[in-house]
């Protein structure tokens, strides 16, 4: 079983190994100019491959995990944000309804309709005709009618 060698000790060994290095490169500029020309002659004969359209499975596997953090994080953030936003909107709607700010507007509609029933039937209640609307209003009024008032109406109509 290998034991971990302290890297600082090995660092000194590295420096000493380098000191014993005897590799020699040509120092002539002509040599490197010729090498450069040889390389460029080969490059001139070569076509650059087009950029890869898709990541190959090998590249996908070798891709660093951090590369997936940004798109995954973005999607998660959108999901969390939309969830929070929806819950907040729902809460606001409920509180506004309790305060009566979001009533179904029935009383207002009836008042407007009594002034111009033909407009109402054309715009808001397209499935109802004017007579249907008056029947609804009359039925609701009848349900809320007091006994005294009923007797009075029946008494007057009977004459």
């Amino acid at each position, binding site marked *: 079983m290998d034991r971990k060698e302290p890297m600082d000790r090995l660092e000194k060994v590295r420096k000493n190994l380098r000191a*014993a290095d005897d*590799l020699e490169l040509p120092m002539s500029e002509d040599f490197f100019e010729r*090498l450069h020309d040889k*390389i460029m002659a080969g490059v001139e004969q070569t076509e650059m491959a*087009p950029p890869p359209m898709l990541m190959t499975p090998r590249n996908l596997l070798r891709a660093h995990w951090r590369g997936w953090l940004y798109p995954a994080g973005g999607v998660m953030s959108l999901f969390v944000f939309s969830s929070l936003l929806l819950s907040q909107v729902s809460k606001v709607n409920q509180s506004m309804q309790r305060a009566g700010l979001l009533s179904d507007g029935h009383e207002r509609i009836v008042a407007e309709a009594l002034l111009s029933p033909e407009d109402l039937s054309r715009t808001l209640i397209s499935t109802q005709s004017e007579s249907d609307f008056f029947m609804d209003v009359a039925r609701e009024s009848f349900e809320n009618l007091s006994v005294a008032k009923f007797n009075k109406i029946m008494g007057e109509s009977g004459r």
Partner: protein
Amino acid sequence: MERDLILSDLELVEKVKSGDRRAFSELVKRHQRSVLRLSLRFVKDMDTAEDVTQEAFIKAYEKLNSFEGRSSFKSWLFQIAVNTARNKIREWKRDTVDIDDVQLAVGAEAETTLVHTAVADILQQEVEKLPFKQKTALVLRVYEDLSFNEIADIMECPYDTAKANYRHALMKLRQTFEQQAELKNWTEEVGGFFMEVNQRFAEAEG
């Protein structure tokens, strides 16, 4: 040309990608010495090293559109050079069975007595006997002064693997040093470099 000198490698790469081959010429001039030196450490023959260098640059040009800039251009180029040298060695494989075990073909002189061989030669021969991955990590770290992150990019392995290969290489060299009686004599003569190495490793072992 004066303007090219102030462009970074990545800027030159972008120019090459857009069709400017002269920018690639500048990249060749910047990196051909280091690539040649690296190739020579593996193939040991100047003509072959030139061929490896040329092939590495041609492959780099051909695949330049796949270079994404995650590592430095030099690291990416070195990666291609190391793989090209490795393939060249495989072509000449003589007494090896598996290139990853690396027993690189060693000349007959290595089989003879080493009494009169200089320590540097012994060192070089022992480095040649290292497994390819360990030798690569050692060469890149000791002789090219690269960081382990750069070595990991070149060797396409994790950081810890690159470091482990380097450490194992040094440990194998230490074992060789201890076995070479002449090396010990030499260390006594020159004032203790390898004695110090042996001592430090012995301390680490102990």
